[in-house]
């Protein structure tokens, strides 16, 4: 690798060396307790799929260029300079991790391993080796943010069609205004995804609850974050934040997308409005008596998959369980559960990549977990999880139905 490129890559690392990154990079003792806590390692037991194995790839280059021991005695810390092989190792490390942070739960020092892999992702972008799919999707989202006015009319036309579907769901006399847009001072700004289902069911629920809400022009998913491009990730997140500020809403509600929820809720610093997941809002409406659902409507055994960004990294555990216990006659808990729950293997943008074989293998602990419950239906509240669980179910021939939480509530509304 030529000197200029090495210098550029060194600068990329330097930019990422904030406070937590500095101590995360230094304090691992390689005790190995995280080794088998990753679903990918469980499915494919190789060092490169273990949390410590992944983080060590980043540490190798960090030590080489930023630690005196790495410069003077590279053997001491297994320091390694940039080369083709190392970049390949970084890619394998970064894009086999879903960012679920289950390993962080087991690390005696509380090291956030996916956070360290943020360096790997930025390095891959600078080197031009980041997954093209994610980069293109992030670019598309950035472009939409820059020229949203161009998209507005077309989007409004699509929404008109979706309003008719909402009308059917809630037996409304007219479809007009069922999906409001650009409504200043609304209580809620709802941020959906590009799929119609991500807007129709929440819209039905908001209307049933007589909520004062408005729909965002943007989709919640943040491909900049998945790709590891901090600049684009911030831009994409700020599209919605700025929209919410301009409209003066009190709360933004994020569709079933774990990362899209975690970013504004926990990673953007203080915001002048509340950030909630649609799951929390549904639970709130039921508790307040604003919507009613058909209790015991689901007769087959049901289990809940905690999306990592909603549960472990978001603290939303009890709300979906309470609702599912109402909806289902036979609710079954997975084991391990809640913060120890296994990741499905589809997060971190992995479902958008051409890696189905890897995802089926790395989904093995999830498959076993589901099978142990004996459930015939798995409910979740994250689009990535939904897609990945469907892949696992098909890949292993499990024959379980994967259902979206919001859709399930939307279909079982008493209107």
């Amino acid at each position, binding site marked *: 690798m030529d000197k200029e490129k090495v210098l550029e890559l060194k600068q990329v690392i330097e930019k990422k060396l904030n406070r937590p990154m500095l*101590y995360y990079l230094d*304090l691992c003792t390689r005790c190995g307790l995280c080794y088998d806590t990753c679903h990918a390692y469980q499915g494919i037991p190789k060092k490169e799929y273990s949390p410590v194995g992944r983080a060590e790839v980043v540490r190798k280059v960090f030590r080489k260029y930023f630690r005196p021991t790495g410069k003077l005695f590279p053997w001491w*810390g297994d320091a390694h300079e940039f080369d083709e092989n190392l970049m390949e190792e970084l890619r394998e490390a970064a894009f086999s991790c879903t960012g679920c942070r289950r390993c962080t739960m087991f690390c005696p020092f509380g090291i956030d391993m996916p956070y360290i892999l943020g360096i790997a992702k930025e390095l891959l972008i600078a080197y031009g080796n980041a997954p093209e799919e994610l980069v293109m999707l992030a670019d598309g989202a950035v472009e939409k943010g820059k020229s949203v006015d161009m998209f507005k009319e077309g989007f409004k036309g699509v929404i008109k069609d979706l309003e008719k579907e909402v009308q059917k769901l809630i037996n409304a006399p007219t479809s007009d205004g069922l999906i409001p847009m650009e409504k200043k001072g609304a209580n809620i700004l709802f941020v959906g995804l590009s799929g119609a289902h991500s807007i129709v069911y929440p819209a039905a629920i908001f209307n049933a609850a007589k909520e004062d809400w408005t729909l965002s022009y943007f989709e919640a998913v943040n491909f900049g974050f998945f790709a590891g491009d901090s600049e684009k990730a911030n831009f994409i997140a700020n599209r919605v934040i700025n929209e919410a500020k301009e409209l003066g809403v009190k709360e933004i509600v994020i569709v079933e997308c774990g990362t899209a929820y975690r970013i504004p809720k926990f990673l953007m610093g203080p915001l002048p409005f509340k950030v909630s997941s649609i799951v929390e809002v549904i639970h709130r409406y039921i508790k307040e008596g604003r919507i009613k659902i058909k209790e015991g409507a689901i007769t087959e055994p049901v289990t809940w998959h905690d999306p990592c960004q909603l549960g472990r990294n978001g603290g939303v555990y009890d709300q979906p369980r309470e609702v599912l216990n109402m909806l289902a006659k036979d609710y079954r808990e997975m084991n391990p559960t809640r913060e120890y729950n296994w990741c499905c293997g589809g997060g971190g943008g992995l479902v958008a990549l051409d890696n189905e074989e890897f995802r089926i293998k790395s989904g093995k602990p999830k498959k076993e977990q589901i099978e142990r419950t004996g459930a015939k239906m798995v409910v979740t509240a994250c689009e990535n999880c939904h897609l990945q669980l469907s892949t696992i179910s098909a890949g292993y021939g499990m024959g379980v139905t994967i259902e979206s939480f919001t859709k399930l509530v939307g279909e079982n509304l008493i209107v």
Partner: protein
Amino acid sequence: MLGYISYFILVPMVYIAFVTLIVGLMYKFYVIFRAPVPAGTGAIFPKKGSKVLGLIYDAMIVPNVYNKQKVFWFIIMIFHIAFFLLFLGHLELVDDFAFIQIIPHKIFLGGGVVGITLIITTLYFLFRRFGTPYREISIPEDFVILLVLFFCILFGSILHLAERYSDWGAVLRVNVDVYREWLQSMILLKPELSYKITELSHYTILVLHVLFANIFLMMFPFSKMVHSVFTFLAHYRKRK
């Protein structure tokens, strides 16, 4: 020549080691606290207990290790407690401290058992690294630190056990005041290595013990040993 080397190890190198340790750690903290703080939080849920007490609990009792590998948890707890007791024992080599005498004892609580415990646990950590999957993730630093620690404790324990229990120790038993004289002179920056130390029959063992201790202290800020300090920062972020 050997006399000069021994003197260097017992006097200038001790200063170098402590300065390296203190300045090294201060520099590390300076770099960390000067670095930008990212927006948001790295919290993991649920956040049980208070922020401060919780992070102390997470860092010092390591419940996540207990939940995962109970035997390993037991060994690391014993190792760290023994390490702490030896630290207190070395304080007693400098002066009397009433708080250490809560349990009345001669200097070095445990009568040598603590050192032996530390040797066994260090060897456990060392040999654990030769097994799968730990061998694959270990780097030379991991082995070197454990070896340095092992030799440091080994020579320290030989000194202690010989003086306390052997016939050889009974003949040449050293009054703790001899060590205190030397160590206090070091602290007062008026180093004095009297013949009472240099003429000890086990002087070589003492020199080797101090040599490995010096190396350990000098490596501390530049190695994974910083986990003992930085773990609190990482756990804090997890609970923020």
